[in-house]
């Protein structure tokens, strides 16, 4: 049986592992790995929009298809290995921050100087000074530094002036900010979102919280608010367009919040202007024509197109007989703004107005002449004499097209967002402190050698320039009553 390791050795090993896990070396490796992984995720289409396996196979070839699917490159950001990398970075950052922050705070409490290496990055000035008493010189130096709003630290061998000392913690503040952002992202697993699709006819109806389990089981036919503790009513919705009449300026919905049938809040939601109530945020997401709920009134003519056979009122999916025959006409689809795809297939363009209304009909049966009829015909609202099939048994003319609109309101419960926001704010504060408000640090000491007595003024990198340092040195010299200047620049 192996003997247990002595406590100091165990502690040393543990310390070694902790140092490695919080080391800059590991941080560099993790940053590279996460950057490469994210780049892969940015290039390869990601779930849930990933194309089918066959498309992936043809796009990338057999080898890369195997690599992509086995390593989950088509869902990088949810893959266990990517999450493990993020967790490792969080651990690395936490350990590094704890170690650094502890040292920085201890240093600040003791009034220690910044890292010795940084002293020599800044400017240095050497001036000859008169032979006054040492205490007089120190008092003059301290007075000048205090006049320049430096905090003076008296050492045996030097006087140190420091400004913006708290910004020494800025790098740690940045790290803390990143950790808080990551904590916010972790809280994102509690995020919930749903979509309310409100049709024109449902304006003014109350959207109540979903009955327990009804929405999940698909038992609710009208929209309901999952996880809601209040009701919502969409009073109106619409679109505002620019003077060109085409480009949308704003999509909006006027909503009222109700608690126990009492109206507590009325607001307009629009793109970029969400509404938040009791932790649920509502976003204006979609607006458009509800072609599936369209109705048309049409005139059916005889083969010559001259005589009207019938006028029919139809909704999408509805069927009606054509009088005098056994032909049935079905309204298969309605387009608010018909477009034609690259393959010639018709599609509905997302527009703010019904620019090019059209209807697709199916006619099946036996016509008045006893001929079999089975065809589709596409009829245009603006071009009544144009047909997909020019030679048809029953030319159709659209008399009226009524296409209602609908709005999509996304609602989101996002407990991680305030945390991430706070993290970003802390991170930004740290960045400003670290890169724009670095601590200014002046080291002033009196030295003597064979050539005389010298005032050495050396500044940390935070001091703006050599000219600033020279200014301080000259001010000290003026206080001592001498202006002889030389420099070791």
């Amino acid at each position: 049986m192996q003997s247990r390791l002595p406590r100091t050795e165990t502690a040393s090993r543990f310390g070694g592992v902790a140092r490695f896990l919080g080391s800059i070396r590991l941080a560099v490796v993790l940053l590279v790995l996460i950057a490469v992984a994210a780049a892969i995720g940015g290039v390869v289409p990601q779930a849930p929009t990933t194309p089918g396996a066959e498309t992936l196979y043809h796009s990338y070839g057999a080898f890369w298809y195997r690599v992509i699917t086995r390593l989950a490159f088509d869902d990088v950001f949810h893959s266990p290995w990517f999450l493990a990398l993020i967790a490792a970075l969080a651990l690395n950052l936490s350990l590094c921050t704890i170690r650094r922050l502890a040292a920085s705070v201890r240093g600040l409490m003791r009034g220690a100087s910044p890292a010795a290496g940084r002293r020599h990055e800044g400017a240095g000035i050497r001036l000859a000074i008169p032979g006054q008493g040492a205490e007089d010189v120190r008092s003059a130096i301290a007075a000048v530094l205090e006049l320049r709003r430096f905090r003076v630290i008296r050492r045996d061998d030097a006087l140190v002036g420091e400004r913006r000392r708290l910004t020494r913690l800025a790098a740690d503040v940045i790290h803390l900010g990143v950790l808080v952002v990551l904590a916010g992202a972790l809280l994102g697993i509690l995020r919930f979102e749903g979509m309310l699709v409100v049709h024109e006819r449902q304006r003014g109806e109350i959207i109540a919280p979903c009955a327990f389990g009804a929405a999940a089981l698909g038992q609710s036919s009208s929209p309901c608010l999952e996880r809601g503790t209040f009701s919502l009513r969409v009073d109106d919705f619409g679109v505002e367009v620019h003077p060109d009449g085409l480009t949308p300026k704003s999509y909006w919905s006027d909503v009222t919040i109700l608690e126990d049938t009492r109206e507590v809040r009325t607001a307009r939601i629009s793109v970029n202007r969400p509404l938040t109530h009791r932790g649920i945020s509502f976003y204006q997401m979609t607006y458009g024509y509800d072609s599936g709920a369209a109705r048309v009134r049409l005139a059916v003519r005889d083969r010559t197109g001259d005589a009207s056979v019938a006028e029919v009122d139809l909704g999408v999916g509805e069927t009606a007989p054509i009088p005098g025959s056994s032909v049935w006409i079905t309204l298969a689809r309605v387009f608010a703004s018909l477009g034609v795809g690259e393959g010639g297939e018709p599609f509905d363009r997302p527009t703010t107005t019904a620019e090019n209304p059209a209807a697709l009909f199916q006619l099946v049966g036996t016509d008045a002449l006893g001929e079999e009829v089975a065809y589709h015909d596409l009829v245009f609202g603006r071009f009544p004499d144009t047909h997909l099939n020019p030679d048809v048994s029953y030319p159709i003319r659209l008399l009226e097209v009524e296409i209602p609109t609908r709005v999509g309101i996304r609602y989101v419960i996002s407990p991680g967002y305030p945390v991430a926001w706070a993290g970003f704010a802390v991170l930004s504060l740290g960045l400003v402190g670290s890169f724009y408000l670095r601590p200014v640090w002046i080291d002033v000491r009196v030295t003597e050698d064979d050539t005389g007595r010298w005032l050495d003024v050396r500044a940390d990198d935070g001091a703006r320039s050599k000219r600033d340092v020279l200014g301080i040195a000259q001010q000290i010299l003026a206080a001592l009553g001498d202006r002889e200047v030389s420099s070791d620049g």
Partner: protein
Amino acid sequence: MAEGSGLFTVAGVGYACGAFLHLLSALLRRAGLSRVATAPVAAGFVAQTAGFVLRGLALGTLPVTNTYETLVFYGWVFALGYLAMLLLGRWKAGRLRGVGGGVAAFAAATIALASSPLYSPELQPLVPALRSHWLILHVSFTLVGEGFFLVAFVASAVTLFRSGGRISQGKARSDVLERLDDLAYRAVAVGFPFFTVGGLFFGAVWAKHAWGRYWGWDPKETFMLVTWLVYVLYLHVRLRRGWRGRRTAWIAVLGFFLALFTFAGVNFLVRGLHSYS
């Protein structure tokens, strides 16, 4: 209407003149020409700023709402990076001519590309998603950061070109390389906070307001993060591991290529929520 486009052309000519004078200065080995080169760049910058103000007033917001405007703004931030590093005393106009010429040439090329028939300078009405103050902050801060990254990129590219693998050959050459390295670092240090706050923070807030989520791994967001990670890497290896010269120069070059790719390339690769920019 194409408000400001004339002034943008003037700016492009100014930047091109600046780049040419820097080139001439390097060829003739006359530092004076390089100092003079700053004048047309500064004049171009003033003209472009005036153009932006005019266009912004006509549009009612910062003109960064389509590819033409963002390209022009890109040129402006490049010139801003050039002038800011000069004003901050991180770079002397008579020295490091390659950097000045490179940055001015980039600014001129960007304006030229924007002015090409590929892009229309006409004002376009704003679609709802772009009508946000967060958009202005997001785009402007991010691109200002990238303006400084360009300075770092050019300084690093010159470092790689001049060092040729032997960084410490001769005192004068070594001094130049040290100054280039320092300039690259200073430029990253100035640009990084802008890039982080604009790209990540303001971008996340805008996404949250517009789409209800602050991060969605949209391809543009993802490559923005990749670019940010590369600059985080640059700062860490330089400040904490003491890397200098060619090694950090390669990272700065990679970082700027990624920034360019994020700006212009991602939309060609995959369409996402940022496909209007």
